[in-house]
């Protein structure tokens, strides 16, 4: 096996393990920290695929910003065992069934899908120059339209916080 393959297996193992930790650990802070490790592993995968820009932005946006806010909220909640509401056993059964169904769908889809053989595309495909070229020529309209989504989220956040202040 080449070095790249070793790195691939290591990153995949790390990603799977840490994402399982997110679900199985009882402590919410540990969950968030494992999710951060998952993001790092996925960013490593992006690097292996030569998508440096995506890797950097993945770290900056997810690990550096969104997860900080997650951690923030969880730390402020200061949750402990006593404060946890009693969950009905039916809820557990229902969620197991729902999750199982989702897994069934996923497995079915992946099994039926035809994986394209690995073809060597342009080695520069993920670099920031290429990405910028494509985003601002071929996909200019979708790119600009997606910014409206962010604008809407920002306006929504401002509206919600201002609304609280007035009442």
């Amino acid at each position, binding site marked *: 096996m080449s070095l790249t393959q070793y790195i691939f297996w290591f990153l995949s193992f790390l990603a799977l393990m840490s994402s399982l930790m997110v679900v199985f650990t009882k402590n919410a802070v540990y969950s968030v920290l494992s999710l951060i490790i998952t993001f790092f592993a996925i960013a490593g995968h992006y690097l292996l695929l030569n998508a440096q820009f995506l890797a950097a932005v993945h770290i900056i946006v997810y690990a550096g910003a969104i997860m*900080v806010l997650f951690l923030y909220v969880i730390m402020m909640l200061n949750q402990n065992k006593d404060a946890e509401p009693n969950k009905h056993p039916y809820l557990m059964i229902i969620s197991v069934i729902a999750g199982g169904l989702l897994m069934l769908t996923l497995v079915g889809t992946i099994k039926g899908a035809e994986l394209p053989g690995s073809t060597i595309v342009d080695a520069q495909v993920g670099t920031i120059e290429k990405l910028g070229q494509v985003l601002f020529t071929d996909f200019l309209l979708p790119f600009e339209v997606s910014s409206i989504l962010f604008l809407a989220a920002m306006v929504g956040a401002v509206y919600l916080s201002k609304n609280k202040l007035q009442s």
Partner: protein
Amino acid sequence: MDPLLFKAILVVAVFGITLIVALYSTFGERKIAAVMQDRVGPNRAGPFGLLQPLADGIKMFMKQELIPSVSNKWLFIVGPCIAMLTACMTGVVIPWGGSLTFGDQVFELQIADLNIGILYLFGVVSLGVYGIMIGGWASNNKFSLIGAIRASSQMISYEIAMGMAIIALVMSTGTLSLKEIVMQQDAGLANIVYQPLGFLIFLVCAFAETNRAPFDLPECETELIGGYHTEYSSLKLGFYLFAEYINMFISSAVIVSFYFGGYNFPFQHELGLDGNLLTIVQTLVFFGKIFCFVFFFMWVRWTIPRFRYDQLMHLGWKVLLPLALFNIFATGMVMWGMGKL
């Protein structure tokens, strides 16, 4: 020499120099504070007190290590480690000088010339928050938690304005590689000429990101005892304090590389120096520039009083962010006017 071996030597050298500079920054800070407050400062350990940092270091090692019984032990230890790790990681993309030539081999004095260098830098800076947040939360102490929350909200707020200032710089230079930014400043003028407002915003944000005065609210003694490191003792406390000095050194290096020509100096090609000698002089000049900024950091600390928390947030969101947005707009307009788009 094997290029990999050279890289390894460079990594160790950058790491060592960073630590030594940070070590002596603590000494420099105390001496500068002494001069500004008309005192003598540390002068007992060694000649002129030069061994004071070593004495402080030994003291930190020898102190009893306390881990609060109510704390989350694992995260309590991880916190300062992350703070130190992220502080040391940023030195990787900084070009410390030109290139050295041995025989027919050329070695660049930069550990990694990433073509996303600025994004890497920004990513590592944004991870620095975790060290403080995890440490503050794991202490299980309300003052630590409040300190950690203050620190992290301050860092997140100023990161945005900092990113916006960098965007204007990237627009005018057209590259994300630090090496290329520095090389462009060799050919033309230093970026401070093109980005004066961006520099100002970046400088203020650098103060906030390193948690230095006047933005040292996270460790505001009058309100929060010691902030996020209230419960820390011995070397773990040392890590937090030391990380601040490393951050100060690295952010000075970044400011110099971005806006003040990096390792370049005026008329460097007219001196008639040969390749390797020029590189050494360049590196020394680079360190000279960095130390000017480190001094500036300390100067500000002993001159300007601490902000109030609402003033801090006001400055970040209502002054720096609009200014940074205006800077992007103005940069775009000027570039459009000059036909560079």
